[in-house]
C-alpha cells in the first residue's frame, strides 16, 4: 500500500488547499527558466548563483528558488521572474544573481540593466505580463510552465492539476467525455488537424482489444520545439490528458514516443510518470474507480518520418520506422494491429483544460473551424525568437510583428514558412515590381491580383491549407531579405530526402530528382522547362506518395514557385541570386565602407582577403570560395554579395571612393 495514492477527489482537494495555503504565506519565489533554450545559455549557473546569494543573505527560508519549464521567450534567456510580483529579468548572468537578491529582494529596488526594453519604443517594462511578447499571447497551455517546477507534482496539483481527471473519471461517462471533446472542436495539433473527438469516438467503436493510447512526442520538424517545451515544462498536463483520453476510449495501455534528442523532456516525463503512478493518477483503480491505465515512455530513434503515425507505430514495435498505407485507419488497426489512438503532445495538453472548463468555454476561443489556441515556435530572422501561444484566427502580422518584433537589424521582412519541411513558404510582402526585360519574352509576368499580401491572413488550419501551406505542428520560420527562396526550397527538399524512409518510389526518387533540379537552378544551370518538370513531379508526388511526408514534400517547392516565381526566374534566366545566398551565383566583394578593421583577414580560410590594418581590403576573386565566413563577421556591412563576376567592378569603384576612416567615425562605431 502506498499512502500517497489518491482514492477520492476529496483527498486531492485537501492536498491542494494545503499547498495553496502554504504558498500564500507571502513568500517570494524566484523562478528561473530551465528550458533547453535557457539551459543552453547557462541558467544552471544562474540558479546556483541565486542559491549562493540567498545563503549569503540568509534568505534561504524566506525565498524559494523554482526552476521551471520554458517561459517561451528564449531569445532573452536566461529568464528570471520574481513572483508574486512578476518582475521580469532577462539575460541574467550568474554575477547578476547577487545584485537581484540584494537590490530587488532585500530592498525592493529594480535592477534596471536587466529589465526588458522594448526595441521599438525603448520603453522599459518591469512586469512579465506587460511585455508585448507576452501580452498579445493567450497562454492557456503554456501559462503554467512559468509557475511550476516540472519535476514537482505538488506544484502541478497546487495549480489545479488532476482536477479535470477527477471530474472526468468520477462524474462523467466515457461517452460524455468524448462528446465534450467533440463539442469543444479540438483538432489534432500534430499537423493534420483531424477532429480529436471524432478520432476518439471511432477508436472507442473499433473492434479489438487491447486498445492503445499514444502520445506523439517525436517532434522532428526543424525549428519547432513546442512539444519539447511542454513535456519539459508541464509533463503532468500531458499525462492527465492521456489518462482522460484513455478513459474515454477504453484503453489501458499508453505510450509516449519521445525523441531521444530531448534528454530533458525524457527525464522530466519519466519523473512525472513515476510521481503520477505514486499518487494513483496512473496504475490500477485510478481515483478509486475501476479504471486502470498506465504509460510507457519510449524513446524514439530520431527520424522525421517517425512522426507519421504508422511509422511511429512500426518504430514502437521495434521495426524499421517506415509507414504503411493508411487506407485502414490506425484507430482500427494501429500498434500491433490493434485500435490505437494517437495524438500529439499539444493535443493531449489541451484535454484537461476542456474537461475542466467545459467545451463551451473552450469553443469560444478561436475561429469557426479551429478552436482553442495554438503554440508556435517563432524562429528564424526575427527579434523575439521563442514559443508563442495564440488563439486561432490571429493574423500573421500580429504574430510576426507584434509578438515577434519583426526581423532583426531592421532588415526587410520577406516571407514566413509554416508547417515544417512539408509546409509552405508564404509571401507576405508584395514583390519588387521590377521585372527583368528578358522575362517579358517568356510571357512570365503574372497578374497583379495574384500578388497578395498574406500578412493579414487569419491563422487557422483551413486558411493555411488554402494558401498552399499547412499548420503542421507549429513551426513558424521568418525570413528576411537575405533569404533565398530557391535555397529555402532546396534546404527543405534536402532535409526531406535525408529523412525519407525510401519505401515508396515517388518519395524516394522524386525527392532526389527534385533536389537535383533545384540544385541545378541554384547553380545557375536551370532551364525554363525545369519549373514545369518540378510542378509535374510535385503533382505526381502529391497523388501517389505512400504517406504524408512524401505527399506534402512538394509544398515548399510549389509554394515558393507560386509566390516567388520571379526569384526562380532570376536564378534561371539572369543567373543571379537576389538574396545572395546561392554560392555558385555569388561573388563576395568589399566596398568602400570598409574600415580596415582587418577582422575578415584572419578568418578567410583561403587567404583570399588582401589588406593591411586601416587600409581598404580586397577579396581576390579567384581565390575566394564564397564560404561566407567574412560576410558573417563584418560588422560594417562592407562585404557585399553580388552577382557572380561583378565583384571586381565593386572593388574597383571602392578603390576609387575609399578614404581612410576618420577618427571620429571610428570612435562612434566603437
Amino acid at each position, binding site marked *: 500500500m502506498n499512502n500517497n495514492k489518491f482514492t477520492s477527489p476529496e483527498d486531492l482537494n485537501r492536498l491542494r488547499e494545503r499547498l495553496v495555503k502554504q504558498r500564500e504565506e507571502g513568500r517570494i519565489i524566484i523562478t528561473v527558466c530551465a528550458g533547453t533554450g535557457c539551459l543552453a545559455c547557462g541558467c544552471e549557473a544562474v540558479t546556483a548563483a541565486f542559491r549562493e546569494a540567498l545563503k549569503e543573505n540568509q534568505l534561504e527560508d524566506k525565498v524559494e528558488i523554482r526552476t521551471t519549464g520554458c517561459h517561451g521567450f528564449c531569445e532573452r534567456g536566461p529568464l528570471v521572474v520574481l513572483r508574486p510580483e512578476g518582475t521580469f529579468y532577462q539575460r541574467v548572468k550568474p554575477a547578476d544573481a547577487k545584485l537581484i537578491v540584494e537590490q530587488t529582494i532585500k530592498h525592493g529596488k529594480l535592477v534596471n540593466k536587466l529589465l526588458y526594453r522594448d526595441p521599438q519604443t525603448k520603453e522599459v517594462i518591469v512586469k512579465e505580463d506587460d511585455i508585448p511578447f507576452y501580452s498579445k499571447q493567450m497562454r492557456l497551455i503554456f501559462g503554467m510552465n512559468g509557475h511550476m517546477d516540472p519535476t514537482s507534482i505538488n506544484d502541478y496539483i497546487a495549480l489545479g492539476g488532476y482536477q479535470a481527471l477527477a471530474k472526468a473519471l468520477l462524474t462523467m461517462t466515457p461517452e460524455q467525455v468524448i462528446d465534450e471533446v467533440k463539442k469543444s472542436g479540438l483538432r489534432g495539433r500534430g499537423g493534420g488537424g483531424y477532429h480529436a473527438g471524432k478520432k476518439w469516438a471511432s477508436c472507442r467503436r473499433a473492434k479489438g482489444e487491447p486498445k492503445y493510447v499514444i502520445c506523439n512526442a517525436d517532434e522532428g520538424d526543424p525549428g519547432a520545439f513546442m512539444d519539447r517545451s511542454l513535456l519539459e515544462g508541464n509533463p503532468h498536463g500531458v499525462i492527465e490528458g492521456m489518462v482522460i483520453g484513455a478513459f474515454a476510449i477504453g484503453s489501458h495501455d499508453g505510450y509516449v514516443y519521445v525523441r531521444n534528442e530531448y534528454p530533458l523532456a525524457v527525464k522530466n516525463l519519466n519523473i512525472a510518470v513515476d510521481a503520477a503512478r505514486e499518487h494513483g493518477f496512473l496504475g490500477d483503480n485510478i481515483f478509486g474507480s475501476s479504471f486502470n491505465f498506465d504509460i510507457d515512455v519510449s524513446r524514439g530513434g530520431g527520424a522525421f518520418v517517425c512522426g507519421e503515425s504508422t511509422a511511429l507505430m512500426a518504430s514502437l514495435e521495434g521495426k524499421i520506422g517506415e509507414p504503411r498505407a493508411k*487506407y485502414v485507419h490506425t484507430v482500427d488497426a494501429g500498434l500491433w494491429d490493434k485500435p490505437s489512438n494517437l495524438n500529439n503532445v499539444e493535443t493531449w495538453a489541451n484535454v484537461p483544460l476542456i474537461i475542466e472548463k467545459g467545451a463551451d468555454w473552450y469553443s469560444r476561443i478561436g475561429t469557426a473551424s479551429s478552436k482553442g489556441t495554438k503554440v508556435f515556435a517563432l524562429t528564424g530572422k526575427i527579434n523575439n525568437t521563442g514559443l508563442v501561444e495564440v488563439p486561432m484566427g490571429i493574423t500573421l502580422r500580429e504574430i510576426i510583428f507584434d509578438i515577434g518584433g519583426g526581423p532583426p537589424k531592421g532588415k526587410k521582412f520577406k516571407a514566413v514558412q509554416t508547417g515544417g519541411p512539408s509546409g509552405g513558404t508564404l509571401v507576405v510582402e508584395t514583390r519588387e515590381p521590377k521585372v527583368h526585360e528578358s522575362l517579358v519574352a517568356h510571357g512570365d509576368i503574372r497578374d497583379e491580383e495574384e500578388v497578395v499580401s498574406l500578412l493579414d491572413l487569419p491563422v487557422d488550419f483551413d486558411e493555411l491549407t488554402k494558401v498552399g501551406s499547412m499548420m503542421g505542428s507549429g513551426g513558424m520560420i521568418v525570413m528576411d531579405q537575405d533569404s533565398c527562396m530557391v535555397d529555402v526550397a532546396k534546404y527543405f527538399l534536402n532535409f526531406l530526402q535525408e529523412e*525519407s*524512409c*525510401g519505401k515508396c518510389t515517388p518519395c524516394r*526518387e522524386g525527392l532526389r530528382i527534385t533536389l*537535383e533540379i533545384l540544385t541545378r537552378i541554384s547553380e545557375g544551370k536551370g532551364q525554363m522547362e525545369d519549373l514545369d518538370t518540378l510542378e509535374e513531379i510535385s503533382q505526381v508526388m502529391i497523388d501517389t506518395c*505512400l504517406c504524408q511526408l512524401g505527399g506534402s514534400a512538394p509544398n515548399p517547392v510549389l509554394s515558393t514557385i507560386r509566390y516567388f516565381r520571379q526569384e526562380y526566374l532570376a536564378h534561371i534566366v539572369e543567373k543571379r541570386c537576389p538574396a545572395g545566398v546561392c554560392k555558385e551565383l555569388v561573388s563576395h566583394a568589399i566596398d568602400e565602407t570598409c574600415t580596415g578593421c582587418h577582422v575578415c583577414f584572419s578568418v578567410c580560410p583561403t587567404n583570399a582577403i588582401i589588406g593591411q590594418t586601416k587600409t581598404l581590403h580586397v577579396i581576390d576573386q579567384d581565390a575566394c570560395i564564397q564560404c561566407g565566413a567574412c560576410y558573417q563577421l563584418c560588422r560594417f556591412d562592407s562585404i557585399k554579395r553580388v552577382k557572380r563576376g561583378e565583384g571586381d567592378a565593386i572593388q574597383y569603384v571602392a578603390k576609387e571612393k575609399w578614404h581612410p576612416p576618420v577618427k571620429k567615425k571610428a570612435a562612434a562605431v566603437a
Partner: protein
Amino acid sequence: MEKVSITIDGKPIEVEEGSYVLQAAEELGIKIPTLCYYEHMTPYAACRICSVEARDGKGWTKIVTACNYPAWDGLQIFTDTPRVITARKVNLEMLMSHCAPAPVLQELADELGVKEPRWGIGTDTCIMCGLCVRICDEVVGAHALTFSSRGIDREVSTPFKLESEDCILCGACARYCPTGHIRMTDTNGRILHSELTLGPNTAISIPFRQAIPNAPRIDPDYCIHMATGGCKLCSKVCPKECINYEDKDEFEELEIGAIIIATGFQDFDPTPMQQFGYGKYPNVLSSIEFEQMNNAASPTDGKILMENGEEPRSIAILHCIGSRDEDHHKYCSRVCCMYALKFAHLVKEKTNAEVYQLYIDMRTFGKGYEEFYQRILTEGVNVIRGKGGEIVPAPPEYSSEGNLLVRCEDTLIGKFREIPVDMVILCTALEARGDAEDIARKFNISTGADGWFIEAHPKLAPVSTTTEGVFLAGVCQGPKDIPDTVAQGTAAAAHSIRLLNMGEVLMDAAYAEIVEEFCSGCRICNGLCPYNAITFDEEKKVSEINSALCKACGTCVAACPTGAIKARHFTDDQIYAQIEGILA
C-alpha cells in the same frame, strides 16, 4: 464479409467488402501493372505503379494504389484517366532514372509508352520492390534479409552485409527478385561445378514421371515450412485442400506378386585418384557435373563455363577413370566412350574450344555408334590413344593455351605428351551402389565381386534371379547403356506379368515330406525349419510338413534321426545312388 458493388472502368463487379481493388480488376480481366505486389503477401504499396483513380461519384476523387485499396460500396475505380497514366509514367521514369534497365522495367516502359526516361537511366539493379525481404519475413519466416539505411541509401541487405546466419538457402528471394539483383548461382561470381544440380529443385514434385501414385509430394529437406514453420503457400493455392503437412514417411505392407530390382548404380568418386586433381583443381569435372552444366536449365543456362565464368579454350576428356583399372574396377563401364564422344560433340557445338579425347580403346560397337565416332573425327576432335596419366597446373609458358596440363602417353605415335587445357572431364566408372549387398541379402539374391547383382543365368536367364519372382533390370545388374536398360526392364516387366497373370502359384516339385510311419515324434526337425513349415501333430504325435511353405532346403532331411523325412527329388536314396554312380 459483406458483398459490395464497385465499378472498375465502368464495369460493375461484386466483391467482398475490404478486398483489394487489384484482385477485383484481375477478375474483370483489367490489367493493372505492378512491381511490388505478390498475391500471397500483405500488399506493400511501395512501387506505386498500380495507382488508379478512386471516385465516389459525388465529386470526391483520389489517386490510390490498387494493390491495397479496400473496396467499399459505390466505389468507382478508373485505371486509365490521364492523371493515372501520368502518375504511372512519372513514377516509372523516376524509378528508371535510378535503376538499371531490367527487362521488367523495359516492358513496363513499352506498355506505358515511356520512350526515353527524362532523367536518364540508372545503374542500380535493385528496384526496391521489397519482394525478397518480405518473402523472407512473411512467407519463409527466416528473417535473413532486411532493408538497411533509408531514403536514397536504402538497400536490401543481410545483417551487417555479411553472410546471414538465419538464411536457410531456400532461394525464395532470388526466385522472386524481378531483376536478378539477387542470384543464387555462385559465390563471388565463381561457378562451383560440383554444386550444380540437374535443374531447379522445388520442394514439391512428382519424384519421377512414372511414380505411383502419380502425385506430388513434399520433400522435407527442401520444404521451407518444415525448416521454419512459415510459408504454407502451397496450401493457400491448393483449391482442394490436399496439402497435408503432418504426413510422414510410413511403412506399408503391400501384397505383391513380383519384384523388379532396378536400383541402378553410383558414380565412381575420382577423388582418391590424386593424379587427376579432382576436387583440387576447380576445373577438373566429373562427367555428371559436366552433363549437369550442359542442361539448359542449369545455373549457367547450359553454357560451358569455367569456375571463373569464362569459356574454356580447350578441354580434355579422359576415359576409363576407375574402369578397366586394376586398382579400382576391372570391368569396362560400357557407356563412357559413347558419352565422351557426345561431350566432344557438345563442346564443339557450343564453344570454340579444342577437344582432346584420351582413351584406352574406343568401344563404339553397335548400331550407329561407330558412325557417330567417325562423325566426331570429322568435327576436328583430337583423339589420342593413351590413358591420361596426370593432371598438373600448367606452368606459365602454357598460360596462353590452358591452366592445366594433361600428361599422357600417345601409344599410337609412341610419345609422351603434355597437353595444356582449361578444363578436364573425367569419365568416371559406373559402380555398384554401396548398399547393393544389403539389397541382395534382403531379396535373397547375390552380388558379384564388383557388387553388381547376379542374374539366375548369365545367358539363359539374364533377367531372373535365384529367387523366384525377383527380377533385375538396368545397371544394378551390370553396366549398360540406355537401350539395353530399357530392353532389360521390359523383359523384367514381361516376366513379372507372366507370373501375375498365372493366377496360381507354381510350386517347385522339390519339397520335403514326412513319412508318418517312420516319424518317432522326436521334434528335432521342428526347430530347424527356417520357414516354420514343420509342425507337430499333438494327436498323432508326429511332425508334419506344410508343403506350400517348404522350400526344399533339406536341412530337416539331413537331421531326421529316423530318416522319416524325404526330400522329393533329393531323397537319400537318390543321392546315394548318385554317389555310387559317379564314384563307380
